[in-house]
């Protein structure tokens, strides 16, 4: 297949680790991915964020060589994931969303096996320790907890010391402690120079880990940038407080700068939107004092990726 990226050699320095252009993937009448563009910088941590059914897994699995694009091109480490699969497989670590292990295999046995398929694998016992899989003992995979199965899948993705890992929802269903252990490991991968692409529908995960976030909806990337860049959008923040229900917000709006918003979300909880600065905060508290309201649980909230997503799509992320 001729390269659509003329003048580039696969290993050109500075070339993205993953380049997806105009990717289209259909399953029967359903279009799962609809002209998606994505670029993943080498050595960085990119989060592909979107609700269930947005096309995250299809995109990742096309990069992993499991699916052939119906249109568009995909290059991974400068290579074609299907045609150059043999060259890519040792270099790319894969964590599937679920499964991938013999029902009767033990965690350490399976990890040792995947290690034995690689030339310079990580030390299996320390990786087992690291991910808290030591307690799995002789339990077969089918009887491990969901969290243990997830951590084993993660270990299998990294044990071969890949240059690039694709992690499909690495923390879905994990308890907070296991989730943070996974985050630590993912951060360490990045520190050690591994390019990481992960999908998630947790915005806090994307904000906590990613250098770069691609927000996907209905098979398209609708925004891409660092979490800060994405959240800065308009410098809009939110002020929340509680008080007695049914306050007359009209008088508050008159006191606030133009373009501010105010709403009673649920009886007794209020949200003020706009450019939240010290002056605005003073205006709100003064107005509360004038109305004999004690503003309880007053808090300034910065704009989150969830808000960004809501603004871009009009949908809740975790629908």
């Amino acid at each position, binding site marked *: 297949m001729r390269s659509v990226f003329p003048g580039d050699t696969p290993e050109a320095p500075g070339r993205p680790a993953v380049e997806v252009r105009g990717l289209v993937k259909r399953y029967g009448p359903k279009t799962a991915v609809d002209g998606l563009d994505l670029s993943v910088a080498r050595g960085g941590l990119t989060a592909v964020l979107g609700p269930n059914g947005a096309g995250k897994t299809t995109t990742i699995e096309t990069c*992993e060589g499991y699916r052939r694009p119906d249109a568009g091109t995909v290059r991974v480490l400068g290579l074609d994931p299907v045609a150059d699969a043999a060259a890519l497989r040792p270099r790319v670590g894969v964590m*599937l969303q679920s499964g991938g292990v013999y029902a009767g295999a033990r965690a350490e046995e399976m990890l040792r096996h995947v290690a034995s398929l690689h030339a310079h694998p990580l030390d299996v016992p320390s990786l087992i320790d690291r991910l808290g899989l030591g307690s799995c003992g002789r339990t077969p995979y089918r009887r491990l907890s969901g969290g243990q199965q997830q951590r084993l899948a993660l270990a299998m993705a990294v044990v071969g010391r890949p240059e690039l890992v694709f992690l499909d929802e690495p923390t879905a269903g994990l308890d907070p402690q296991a989730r943070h252990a996974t985050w630590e490991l993912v951060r360490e991968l990045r520190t050690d120079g*591994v390019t990481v692409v992960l999908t998630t529908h947790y915005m806090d995960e994307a904000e906590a880990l990613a250098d770069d976030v691609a927000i996907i909806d209905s098979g398209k990337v609708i925004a891409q940038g660092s979490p800060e860049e994405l959240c800065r959008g308009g410098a809009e923040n939110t002020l929340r407080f509680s008080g007695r229900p049914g306050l007359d917000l009209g008088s508050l709006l008159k006191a606030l700068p133009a373009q501010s918003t105010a709403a009673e979300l649920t009886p007794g909880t209020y949200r003020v939107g706009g450019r939240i600065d010290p002056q605005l905060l003073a205006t709100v508290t003064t107005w509360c004092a004038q109305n004999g309201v004690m503003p309880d649980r007053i808090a300034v909230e910065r704009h989150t990726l969830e808000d960004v997503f809501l603004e871009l799509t009009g949908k809740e992320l975790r629908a």
Partner: protein
Amino acid sequence: MSHVTSTSDGAFTPRPGAAPLSRMIRAQAALETRMLLRNGEQLLLTVVIPTLLLVLFSAVDIVDTGDGEAVDFLAPGVLALAVMSTAFTGQAIATGFERRYGVLKRLGATPLPRWALMTAKTCSVLVTEVLQIVLLTVIAFALGWSPQGNPFAVLLLLVLGTAAFSGLGLLMAGTLKAEVTLAAANLVFLLLLVGGGVIVPMEKFPGGVRAALELLPISALSDGLRDVLQHGAGMPWGDLGILAVWAVLGLGAAAKFFRWE
């Protein structure tokens, strides 16, 4: 493993590379064999049932096995059954569930090429068969078995039989749902056990039915093994031919229609 690194600072620094092919195939074959030997249902099929049939039918006169010692008739049939239980039934069920649980998919992302995975599966089947044959041969000798014939002809029959059954088993595993494969593979095992000359002599079936049954791979294998081991025949070319046709058809169809996910 000679090149290991602890997961301390810098442990994840990329150092990708595939293991040598021979090591990958060996590791995969060893793992597949362990999975098979650890699975209770598989052991029932591959070890317990053939052993029970051999002992029970040799000791108790349930089926009229013709002239001579019952064990001389039964041992070749049970060896054929052992090959079918591992290469067809066991492999179909195991591979069907590996496909269902994403094991084949996940292995597809490792440096192990697909052809090497299939090679490893074949090695695992052969290792299991050797274990079965050793066990059944020892038991048959204890029951007074006196085999005859050319060992090379026996080996050729076993290899072609394995190829024929593997092709059919993989075709089933790679095209049907795992649950359907589980049910169908067991049903076929039972039907062929009864109608394939394993313990019931083919002479018991009426002419037309018998002519059709004799074209089955299990009948060709049990008949060929019996010709050689019981009657001291030379190369059973007819049976070898039937097995070769099944092997080509089965493996060809499996290669064409097998779905990895």
